[in-house]
């Protein structure tokens, strides 16, 4: 692991005011994520994990503070620049899979490469190779609705990683999976992290994820409550 900063967040505060009553979800966080990390942000429900992930990836704007992504200040990027940055550098895995229901497994996985303009043959090869890795090569032409929850999440993992992003953000990736499927999925991601140096940042309160993470970051009531290796947390 080197010390190249992927994410640097300074003084992040996020306040929601949707219902007229201000609610502070993130209360002044300074955080740095370096290349090659396999880190899990942990904390109870409502502790601000998802909000923090959204802010540091540009899916949401902070009320206060600055976020630097690979050396670029988020607030200075235009909408299209931000889109392009996420397309080329960040892979997302969501709790609810969020596959496109009208696209087949293969089409779902190749979607980002289509946006990137990767040639058709290369797209196909990379998609099939990734589907082999997640054990779904035989399901390439199926629609997501004909897959189990675990299979759908594996497609989501394949989709997030096929374009070889420098950072994979996974928000509660195992929340809807059984322990066996979760373990297998996490092992696969950890292997990718070891093999390619791809950086992973999870938000979770699942012990299976915590056990496999190289580093844990504890978030409580919107504040960082220290970070440590998982064995120390236990």
């Amino acid at each position, binding site marked *: 692991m080197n010390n190249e900063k992927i994410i640097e967040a300074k003084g992040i505060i996020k306040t929601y005011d949707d219902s007229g009553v201000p609610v502070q979800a993130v209360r002044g966080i300074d955080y740095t994520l370096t290349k090659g990390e396999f880190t899990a942000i942990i904390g109870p429900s409502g502790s601000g994990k998802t909000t923090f992930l959204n802010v540091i990836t540009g899916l*949401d704007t902070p009320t206060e503070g600055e976020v630097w992504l690979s050396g670029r200040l988020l607030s200075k990027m235009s909408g299209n620049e931000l889109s392009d940055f996420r397309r080329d550098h960040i892979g997302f895995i969501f709790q609810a899979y969020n596959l496109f229901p009208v696209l087949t497994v293969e089409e779902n996985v190749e979607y980002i490469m289509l946006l990137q303009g990767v040639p058709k043959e290369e797209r196909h090869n990379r998609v099939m190779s990734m589907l082999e890795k997640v054990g779904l090569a035989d399901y390439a032409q199926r629609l997501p609705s004909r897959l189990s929850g675990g299979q759908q999440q594996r497609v989501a993992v394949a989709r997030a990683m096929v374009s070889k992003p420098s950072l994979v953000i996974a928000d509660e990736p195992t929340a809807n999976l059984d322990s066996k499927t979760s373990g297998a999925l996490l092992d696969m991601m950890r292997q990718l992290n070891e093999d390619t140096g791809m950086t992973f940042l999870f938000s979770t309160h699942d012990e299976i994820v915590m056990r496999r993470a190289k580093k844990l970051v504890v978030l409580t009531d919107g504040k960082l409550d220290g970070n440590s290796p998982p064995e120390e947390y236990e």
Partner: protein
Amino acid sequence: MLSKLAWRNIFRQKRRTVLTLMTMTGGFVLSSLSIGWMNGSYSNIILFFTNSRTGQIQVHHEGYLADPSIYSTIDNFEQVGSILDSIPDVRSWAPRIYTGALLALKPAGHTSNVYSSSAAASVIGIDPAREQEATGFSDQIIEGEMLTSSDADTSLSSTGQILLGKELAITLEASPGDSLILLSQAANGVVADKRYVVVGIVSTGNTQIDRRTSYITLPDAQNLFALEGKAHEIAVLSSTLNEVDNLTAAISGRLSGRNLETDSWKVFAKEFYNGMKADESSLEVMIFIIVLVAAMGVLNTVLMMVLERRREFGVMKAMGTRPGFIVRMIMLEANIMGFISILLGSIISTAGLLLLSKHGIVMDPPLDYGGAVFREMVASISPDCYWIPAICVMLTATIVSCIPALNAAHTKPAKALRTV
């Protein structure tokens, strides 16, 4: 990928898509049938007016239309006629003299100089043979017979033949066989009077015309009104109604330098033409209302589509999809539905228009349009029936989907991902 996504998204909610397609197709069909019906009706009316009486094109002495005068004549009309004969699209032509007179009726059997009734009337001098060829004039004679040949004795001392419009005959209480005296003033200033025998009653279908018109032969009129070799008007019948403007220009070109003016029916029947244009405006309003109703249906569908897929748009944006891609996708979805509606609508409209063009709708009571009575109206099929509704449907789909598409494109990913 864009078109693949758009195409498949359309069929995610099949029932709603079918309802939307029905709305758009319905709008197309209604607009198409309205245009076909209106065009067909107007074609009927125009043909009726021009074929049976006025011709589609008329040649006059310069200024005659603005200020009709007995002195504004086409001199040597036969020569003009021979030029017209050499123009390919001229189907036929008929010369006419127009003037006014007082008609006094002397009922059949009365020998004394007692006149039972009188009426002011316009007198039209016609060439029976040419008029028959051009307008099928004899078909309008409902009682009695057509004027005999133009070669008949036209001297002022002889008894001429006259046809009376139906309502004029009623006013005069005249019937075939009755005699009348025509009293007027000739172009040379002398009194023009001559005895005539009513040979027939004419019904043009236009009561206003039949109330004030009588017909004598052209040579008779030329002799009576001192207009030898002259005519006031040459009515020209065209082979095709659609080419009238081009033919008018062609005739005008060939007759240039003769102090003559050539006008199409749109000019010499200006009031009728303007009335028709006004009716076209009401058609435009009707089409606008139809399109508006269809647009509401499409708007509802697109809004629902966008609302239901908000989370999906959030995912797309999170993955790095540019807003423009989402805008194009949603607008493409609406336009694909528009295109399908046009295809379906064209098939249904063609069937409807074919039916209405073969079996018109019987007007009960008959439609009175400017004095002309129509008992059956038929539709006509033209490109207008397709391209106007097609443009309306595509424009509606595009405009209506614009705002929801922009809205979807500016979805905030974090907020959208929180929606269930």
